[in-house]
C-alpha cells in the first residue's frame, strides 16, 4: 500500500508516563489527516516519532518507507512544532530563506511568504511579531522547503478567531495543491473544518477513526450531573446511557442525548436535584463509546 508515513504498534513512555501504547497510524498520500485528542493523548509524541525526533521504545516509524531520520525522508517533510521559538533578531524573510536553503527543491521565498500571509512583515524581526504572526512564521517555515508532507502540531493553539480562520484557509490551499497534511488538534471543530479523515487519540491509543461527519456524530455525547436517590447501576441501564457513576453526593452520567435521559430520571426520582447538563469532553465521549477496552496490540510483540 502506498503510504506517506506510518507508525506500526508504536510504544513510547517517558519515565512512568505512557505516551503511546501501541499506536497504528497510516497517512495516505494527498489526504489531510487530523489527530484529535485531549492534551496528553500522545499527539505530539506521534508526530515526534514520525519526524524521527524521538525513537519508539517498541514498534516502528516510517516516513516515505524509510527511517524518519534519513535525510532522504526529511527533505520531503516540513514541520510546525509546538515548542519552537526562533532567534529574535533575525527577520521573517531571513528565517524563511535559511530554512528553505536546507531543501533541494524549496518554494521561492516570496511564494512561501505569500502563502503564509507574511509579505507585509517580511522585514520585521521575529522578536517584534505578535503571537499570531509568530505562528504564521512557523507555518511558513514548515512549507518553505516545498514538502510533500506537512506536520502541523497544534497549528492554531493560542490564536484568535481571525488568525485561526486565516491559517485554516492557508492549510486548505495547500491541501488543494495535493500536499499531504498531518495536523494535531484538540478541537473537534478544527479537525472538522480541515480534515478528510480524523483519528481520535486517547491515552496513547487510537480510539476512533473516520470521516469528520462520522466522528462528529459519535462525539455528540452529553454529560449529566445530578443528585439523585437512584443507584448508579440502575441509571447506567437506562436507554441511551453509556456510563453512570457516583461522584461524591452526585451522580455523573454520560449519554448520547440528554433530554430522554433527563425525562426518565425525573419520572423515576421526583426528588432529583442540582441538575446540570454539559457537553461531554471529547475524551469522555470516545472512551464511553469504545465498547471494547481490550487492546489486542498490547498483547503482541511487534514484528519489526
Amino acid at each position, binding site marked *: 500500500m*502506498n*503510504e*506517506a508515513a506510518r507508525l506500526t504498534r508504536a510504544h513510547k513512555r*517517558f519515565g512512568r508516563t505512557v*505516551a503511546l501504547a501501541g499506536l497504528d497510524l497510516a497517512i495516505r*498520500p*494527498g489526504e489531510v489527516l487530523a489527530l484529535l485528542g485531549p492534551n496528553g493523548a500522545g499527539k*505530539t509524541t506521534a508526530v*515526534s516519532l514520525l*519526524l*524521527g*525526533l*524521538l*525513537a519508539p521504545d517498541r514498534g516502528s516509524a516510517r516516513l*516515505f*518507507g524509510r527511517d524518519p531520520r534519513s*535525510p*532522504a525522508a*526529511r*527533505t*520531503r*517533510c*516540513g*514541520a510546525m*512544532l*509546538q*515548542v*519552537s*521559538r*526562533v*532567534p529574535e*533578531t*533575525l527577520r521573517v524573510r*531571513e528565517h524563511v*530563506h*535559511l*530554512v528553505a*536553503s*536546507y*531543501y*533541494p*527543491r524549496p518554494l521561492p521565498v516570496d511564494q512561501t511568504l505569500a502563502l503564509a500571509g507574511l509579505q507585509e512583515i517580511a522585514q520585521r*524581526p521575529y522578536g517584534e511579531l505578535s503571537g499570531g504572526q509568530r505562528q504564521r512564521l512557523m507555518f511558513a*517555515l514548515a512549507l518553505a*522547503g516545498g514538502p*510533500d*508532507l506537512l*506536520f502541523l502540531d497544534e497549528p492554531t493553539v493560542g490564536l484568535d478567531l481571525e488568525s485561526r480562520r486565516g491559517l485554516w484557509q492557508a492549510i486548505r490551499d495547500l491541501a488543494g495543491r*495535493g500536499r*499531504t497534511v498531518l495536523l494535531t488538534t484538540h478541537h473537534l471543530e478544527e479537525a472538522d473544518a480541515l480534515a478528510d479523515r480524523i483519528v481520535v487519540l486517547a491515552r496513547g491509543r487510537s480510539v476512533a477513526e473516520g470521516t469528520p461527519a462520522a466522528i462528529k456524530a459519535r462525539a455528540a455525547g452529553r454529560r449529566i450531573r445530578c443528585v439523585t436517590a437512584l443507584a448508579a447501576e440502575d441509571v447506567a441501564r437506562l436507554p441511551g446511557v453509556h456510563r453512570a457513576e457516583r461522584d461524591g453526593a452526585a451522580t455523573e452520567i454520560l449519554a448520547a442525548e440528554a433530554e430522554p435521559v433527563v425525562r426518565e430520571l425525573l419520572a423515576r426520582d421526583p426528588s432529583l436535584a442540582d441538575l446540570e447538563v454539559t457537553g461531554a469532553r471529547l475524551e469522555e465521549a470516545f472512551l464511553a463509546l469504545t465498547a471494547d477496552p481490550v487492546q489486542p496490540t498490547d498483547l503482541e510483540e511487534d514484528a519489526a
Partner: protein
Amino acid sequence: MSATATTTRSPASPLPIAAEPPRRTPRQLATIYALEARYEMLKVLRLPMFAVPTLAFPLVFYCLFGLAFRGGGPGGTPMAVYLLATYGAFGVIGAALFGFGVNVAMERGQGWMLLKRATPMPPGAYFAAKTAVALLFSMLIVIGLFTLGATLGGVRLPTDTWIGLALSLVAGAVPFCAFGLALGYLAGPNSAPAVINLLYLPMAFASGLWLPVEALPGWMQQIAPWLPAYYLAQLGLGALGLPVRVSAGAAVAALAAFTVISLAIARLGYRRDHGRTYG
C-alpha cells in the same frame, strides 16, 4: 558521482515512495554552510547584549591594566606587551564560551534546535556557523588589542611575532568552542550565562589572564596548570618570545586533550537530547 542515476521511475502517485530525492551537490552544501554562518553572524551582531561585552571587555581591561600602568611585568617585560597575550586569550575564550554555550543552551531550550532537527539541515552546518562566528569575534578582538598596543601602548614587534601571536590566539578559540558546546548541552537555557561566568571569570584570573601568573598567590599558581586557559596564555606568551613555564608543544597537547574531552561531553549531551521528551 556517476551519471547512472538518471533513470527515474514514473511516479504512480503524487508521492512515489521509492523516489530518490536529488542528492546535494557540493555547491548546494557550501551554500547551506555559508547561509547558516551568515545568519548566525547577523543574529549575534544584532544582539548588543552579546556583541558589546564580548568585544569591549578585553579591550577595556587591556587599557586599564596594560596601558594605564606603564610599569614592567615579569622580567622587566612591559605590561603592554605581556598583556597582549593574556588579554588576547581572555577575549577569545569569552567569545567562544559565550557564543557557543549560551546560544546552544538557549536554542535547545526554545526548541529552535528541535525545529532544525526536523529539517534536512546537515547538523555540521549549525556547529560550523557557530565556530565561524567565534573565530570572527576572536579576530576582531585580536585586531582591536593589537591596534591599542601598537598605538597607545607603543608596542613594537617584528611582523612575524604579531602574526604568530594572532594565529595562536585565534586558533586557541577552538578548544573553548568545544568546551562552550559541552556547557551548552549541560546547562539549562536560563542558567547557562551564570554557569559560564562562574567558570570563565575565576578560571581567567587563576590562569594569569588578568595579572601575570607570577603575581598570583602561591596556591593559585598551583591550581593554574589544571586550567585550560593557562595553556593558551602560555602559548601566547611563547609566541611573543617571552619566558614561559610550559613549552609550546606541551601547551598544544594540553589544549588538544581538553578539546577531545569537551567534545566527548558535548556528544553525550547531543545524544541525550535525541531521546528527550519536550513540550
